[in-house]
């Protein structure tokens, strides 16, 4: 449950229960921004917007960044930041493509390898911030650079395609199978686009981890008050290393999805994804000061970003104005989902 926003005053039992239900889903207000965008989408482009394929496409395009955002949320909850996830996604996608192109590995072999690669660099991030006590901003910025360099070096600056044809001119079985990761048009039961499924599953798993397990509680404690956490016997170092490792691991998982989506691994893949991922988390209510945020919020933040793009795109808003409107709507969405919105509108006092 870990309600992360100041809940409204508890008045009665019933209200308390309702509040609990809502806060279990994140924070009720977080949805106002999303509702706003949905409303605009429906009002302006009704059917086209609500079309299942359109929504799937929109969320699918963001899925790999959404998965990064989940990892980044973990790190942000402990009071750190992870700028390296874009690069980690890049090297994981390159790893996936190379494993496929050079060694014809099966998807179920590729995913664990990519996750280990990501987790390894994530672990280094954690080690640097704890043992060397480098601010995570610097450590992960350095990692961003190092990993991008390695990615470019191993790939020789050439993108590697994943649609490997066998001697018969058709895709190899492995390449065929690899498409499930998200080549557009490859859906489960011909309907459910795999990356969207993967994103949702990742959200659910990490929502449960954060709300139901000891580890989750420790993540919030480390971000909320590291001294108190340490004095309570929480192994702050271990938790910190763990969240960076998990963030790296998720970036590793997002790598093959990105490669399949693009049908290739580009040495530049994932560049600046970290900003989208962090933005999703923060729009979803995570505080960069740590201790505050939910996966549900991040999920909503990701939806806001991607549907906003979609609505603006469908309405054929010119690109320059898209940038302007996007910025403005993000501000409006964030203000709308403030828990004390109504106090605030009444010109309420400051905290």
């Amino acid at each position: 449950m870990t309600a992360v926003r100041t809940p409204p005053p508890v008045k009665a039992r019933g209200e308390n229960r309702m509040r609990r239900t809502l806060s279990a889903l994140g924070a009720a207000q977080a949805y106002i921004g999303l509702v706003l965008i949905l409303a605009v989408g429906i009002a302006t482009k009704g059917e086209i917007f609500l079309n299942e394929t359109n929504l799937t496409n929109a969320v699918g395009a963001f899925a790999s960044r959404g998965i990064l955002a989940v990892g980044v949320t973990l790190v942000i909850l402990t009071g750190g930041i992870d700028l390296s996830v874009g690069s980690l996604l890049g090297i994981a996608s390159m790893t996936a493509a190379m494993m496929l192109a050079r060694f014809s590995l099966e998807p179920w072999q590729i995913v664990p390898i990519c996750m280990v690669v990501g987790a390894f660099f994530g672990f280094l991030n954690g080690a640097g911030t704890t043992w060397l006590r480098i601010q995570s901003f610097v450590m992960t910025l350095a990692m961003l650079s190092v990993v991008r360099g390695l990615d470019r070096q191993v790939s020789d600056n050439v993108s590697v395609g994943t649609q490997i044809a066998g001697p018969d001119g058709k895709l190899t079985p492995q390449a065929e199978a690899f498409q499930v990761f998200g080549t557009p048009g490859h859906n489960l039961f011909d309907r459910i686009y795999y990356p969207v499924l993967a994103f949702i599953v990742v959200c659910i798993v990490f929502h449960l981890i954060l709300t139901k397990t000891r580890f989750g509680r420790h993540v919030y404690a480390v971000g909320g008050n590291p001294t108190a956490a340490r004095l309570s016997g929480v192994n702050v170092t271990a938790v910190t290393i763990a969240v960076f490792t998990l963030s790296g691991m998720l970036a590793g998982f997002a790598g093959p999805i990105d490669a399949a989506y693009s049908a290739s691994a580009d040495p530049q893949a994932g560049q600046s994804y970290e900003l989208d991922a962090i933005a999703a988390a923060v729009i979803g209510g995570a505080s960069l000061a740590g201790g505050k945020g939910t996966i549900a919020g991040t999920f909503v933040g990701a939806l806001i970003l991607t549907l906003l793009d979609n609505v603006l795109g469908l309405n054929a808003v010119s690109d320059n104005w898209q940038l302007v409107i996007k910025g403005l709507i993000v501000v409006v969405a964030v203000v709308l989902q403030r828990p004390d919105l109504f106090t605030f509108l009444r010109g309420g006092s400051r905290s």
Partner: protein
Amino acid sequence: MSSEAGTVLTMRAIGKSFPGVRALDGVSLTVAEGEVVALLGENGAGKSTLMNILAGVFKDYEGEIEVGGQVAHIHSPRDARRHGIAMIHQELNLVPELSIADNLFLGRERALLDRRGTEARTAELLRGLGLDLSPRTLVKQCKIAERQLIEVAKALSQNVRVLVMDEPTSALADAEVRRLYGVIRDLTGRGVAVIYISHRLEELEEIADRVVVLRDGRHIGERHRIDRDELIQMMVGRPLGEMFPRAAGGSTGEELLTVEGLSVPGEPGSGRTPLREVSLTVRAGEIVGVAGLMGAGRSELLESIFGVHRAAGGAMTLGGRPYRPKSPKAAIRRGVALVAEDRKAQSLVLGNTIGFNVGLPSLGRFLRLGVVAARRANAAVERQVRELRVKAPGIRFTVGNLSGGNQQKVVLAKWLLTAPSLILMDEPTRGIDVGAKAEIHALMSALAAEGKGVLVASSELPELLAMCDRVLVLCEGRVTAEFPRGRATQEAILEAAMARRQVTA
């Protein structure tokens, strides 16, 4: 209660140095089962440091610790817990964004959370301490006193052999203190050893079996009998005169501050008590006390006068002119100062130096062409800090590394430097040792004698009774009584403070 019982804890020749500070030097301590040992000493004597070592806060130290007759290697809080040692730290150490239940069991949860179990256990513990809070309440919604009791509950929730309490009562009023004693007696009855740190000597008389005195990081001696004057002599190394030097019934001047029907709405979720129609006056040269139970709104009253909260109704005058501060800045400009309740959260920039902190509100006085005249400012800070006997290597020392009591002195120094005409003090002697307390009391008297007004909220009734010309009593945001000096007694004040039943009825 007998000290003949088996020894649970032995600390031998403990030493600890910080950069530039020798905090402890060869201190030994033994504690027996079921015994309450009080640890006494001036601010900065090394009490917290010694106990922090026991609780595993520090990795390195010199000396040896034995628990239950066996050498214990304690280098982390986990080690301490393994040996059955729990500590209530001097500074509150709770995670504001987590619920009370989550905080109580932090670090001891099951891998998969057992929410129902922990909440039930939490409710039980809270009830035992007389706290009427839901286990799901977020700690950030709790008042300071409640938080301190939550810390107590947290320590109690563990199966302990040795319980360390570092000034557990500094934010508590009498009623809660009594309840805490009950809890302690209950524990010692079950054989738990308690090490108790407090600067309130009268508490020690009531609860401690034995007193150990530290001075400048050294073990000075111990006594089974509590003789106040002797203990003070041991602590400060010199005899101390009158504890409460305020002369009775000093002549007072004109009305300095008048508050008429002040109402301040509480803020949902922040645990703030709303004020309802509070009226009071403070005359020049007068010390007015504010008494009340926890959550009575004393802090809100002082904060509202200081412009922290926006008033919904009422009027104030200061020095005869209307006074409607819209921010602390405006209040300071009118010569008002507030020694806030929570030094760590409200008063100090812990990561910065003493000089920075003390100078902060008075910088305007040291400006020359918009530039801070650093030399002049530092000299003034230096003087003020010396006057209050802050124990520190210099004014460039980081405030966060000072002992709790010395931090409190820094807060006082900071406000005295603004040369206020009205000084509002919220628990001004919280965590201050007896010697320094006497000095601060003398200082309050001196301020009053200079024609300043002092409005002081305190949970220590003896302090209020001894220091104040008048005592107001608050209950649930209302003034329920006012006693002139001499007519105020502990019983009368408590009765007025608990007037809530009549009020709400």
